[in-house]
């Protein structure tokens, strides 16, 4: 297998043995099963313990760990996200008087996964599935600022000095970058592991989202941040 990494192959073999043993094997048996010296097996197992892919009982026997089990459940389906968030997004639209959107990072694009109309019964069109400009919307700013991968964040890191500020204060504001006269506020939504899985935001006429000094209205900021936290709790985050 050209280009394969030997230690990763060995770790995978160890995980297969541990998974198959049902928590009955110690380091000696595992080393024998994968054909490795005990010291090598031991150091690989210690690394796996460190990332909680395996765990060890009092007798020194190994079983699959919670980190590995959570790996399979970490993916959050966007339709699940909409369903779990919808009570909070409706309440946010109702209380703030603005249109509400939930967006996720779909590869490197910011995609709307849920949209609640501005509660004034004017003609509005659902834009679920639409792609937003990442660097010119509050939703995009939040998603890029909190993205776990550098490669995605690069664009916004280069353009802006305030990514750190967005991360520190926990919300973003955008004034007219996407549509002139329109402003937006957004805050991060975290999944059960604490990773940011979505951004929740409101948008509307700049004069209603911002005050006369073009600053975000504090009441709206707290509504958005609290709603985003409520959805995070709904998703199982207890940070």
């Amino acid at each position: 297998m050209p280009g394969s990494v030997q230690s990763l192959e060995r770790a995978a073999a160890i995980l297969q043995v541990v998974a198959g043993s049902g928590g009955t094997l110690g380091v000696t048996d595992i080393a024998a099963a994968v054909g490795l010296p005990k010291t090598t097996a031991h150091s690989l197992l210690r690394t796996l313990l460190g990332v909680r892919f395996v765990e060890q009982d009092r007798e020194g026997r190994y079983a699959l760990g919670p980190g590995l089990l959570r790996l399979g459940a970490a993916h959050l389906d966007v339709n699940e996200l909409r369903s779990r968030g919808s009570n909070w997004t409706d309440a946010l639209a109702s209380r703030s008087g603005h249109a509400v959107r939930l967006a996720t990072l779909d590869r490197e694009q910011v995609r709307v996964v849920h949209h609640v109309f501005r509660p004034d019964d004017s003609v509005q069109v659902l834009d679920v599935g639409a792609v937003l400009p990442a660097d010119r919307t509050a939703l995009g700013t939040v998603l890029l600022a909190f993205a776990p991968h550098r490669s995605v964040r690069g664009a916004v890191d280069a353009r802006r000095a305030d990514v750190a500020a967005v991360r520190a204060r926990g919300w973003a504001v955008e004034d007219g970058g996407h549509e002139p006269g329109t402003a937006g506020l957004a805050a991060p939504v975290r999944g059960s592991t604490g990773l940011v899985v979505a951004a929740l935001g409101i948008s509307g006429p700049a004069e209603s989202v911002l005050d006369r000094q073009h600053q975000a209205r504090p009441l709206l900021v707290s509504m958005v941040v609290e709603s985003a936290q409520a959805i995070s709790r709904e998703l199982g985050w207890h940070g």
Partner: protein
Amino acid sequence: MADRVVLAVDQGTTSTRSIVFDRGGRLVSVRQREHRQYFPRPGWVEHDPMEIWANTQRTAAQALRDAASSAGEVVALGIANQRETTVVWDRATGRPVTRAIVWQDTRTADLVSRLAARPDAAVVRERSGMDIAGYFAGPRLRWVLDHVPRARERAEAGELLFGTMETWLVWNLTGGPDGGVHVTDVTNASRTSLMDCRSCTWDPVLLDFFGIPAALLPEIRPSVGELGTATALGSPIPITGTLGDQQAALFGQACFAPGEAKCTYGTGSFLLQNTGTELVRTRSGSISTVAYQLAGEPVHYALEGSVAVAGALVQWLRDGLGLIGTAPEIETLARTVEDNGGCYVVPAFSGLLAPHWRGEARGLVAGLTSYVTKGHLARAVLEATGWQTRDVVLAMAADSGLQLPSLRVDGGMTTNNLLMQFVADVLDTPVVRPMVGETVSLGAAYAAGLAVGLWADVEALRRNWHRSAQWSPVPARAAQLAAEHPTWEKAVRLSIAWGAD
């Protein structure tokens, strides 16, 4: 900011919810408690009325406490309830003589077929507006009188009281054995088969037909109007609104004009269309029911189309087949393909309700080829709910002659964009979702608040209603689905034929 608020109790099939709403129709606090489901024999479903009464007191107290910091005076209490569930209790002790017989319970099937075979059976449809069916409360009351020791004798002596859940709760809230008010609202009374659907009074001919003594029946009252004062929740609160849950959802969706309709997509789906103050005689498979009545005003009627399996089919895909991990994931799976691949699912798990009313029908998956994947199956599952909505809407249009301006939707499945767009296309009608998804409890709150003047009239309620989303039909897709409808109808015919012998 102290504002006047309303407490709504939604006494549902699986839980009791107490919700405080403000004057803007916005949710202030909510508490919920599930109650135990008893399945003593196949087809039997029971609830413990004492447990439900305890849950009502507890959740109401909690919701009022949660709201106390932000809300002002609680000016009214409204109740929406699971319909047709039957309670019979001792007037002196307040103890039920047996557990409540739930609307899903089918123990009266034999009784109902015996009654339906009687030469005078036509009086039921003529006077109650509905065919004889085990779905309604009257046969369940008869069952209690026939099977609980001494029940008939005690009922005739005036020792027992009958009610659906709102009757039971109002009686307890207003003092129980100590002066409790024994009343039902006109929507709940219309679901017993014992009420004259024109005069909205207990019908002596129907009472005679079903063998029910008048002595144990509650007084029939309007849905909106003073019933009594709840003294069991700390400070006294006037009880001023009661509605069956589906009628409450119609009220909460502000469907006050003839033609306006709502559909609640839950385990099953329930479509109700306001038909105004004239009772519609149905021929096409929808049923006539009372929508609501404001005190001192004429009764408003509705057509109703109940579909037994909607969200339950998605649950089956999840729990029965294991194709998805959570119900919302069906949309992800369905979007892996462009169409249903020729596959149709008819979810007649225990027969078909409206508009077919074929208890013998059984579910089927039709059109399987090796081309069909789980994605196509997921599409077919969602489309089944859309097609069934279309069948009900067509039946209603035939019965009422009213056009559907748009369909107002609520319930868990309304976050599924693929399904909602399909419903819009298959009906060729806009589908709109309101900002407050809790339409059942909101309807109870509206009814109660209207009676005490918190809202001036139904127009004020209409102004509270706001769209949170709208799905508009795509003309080309609507035409395509209209052409596809006979294929769905063929699948329905096959499901009926499958169960026929």
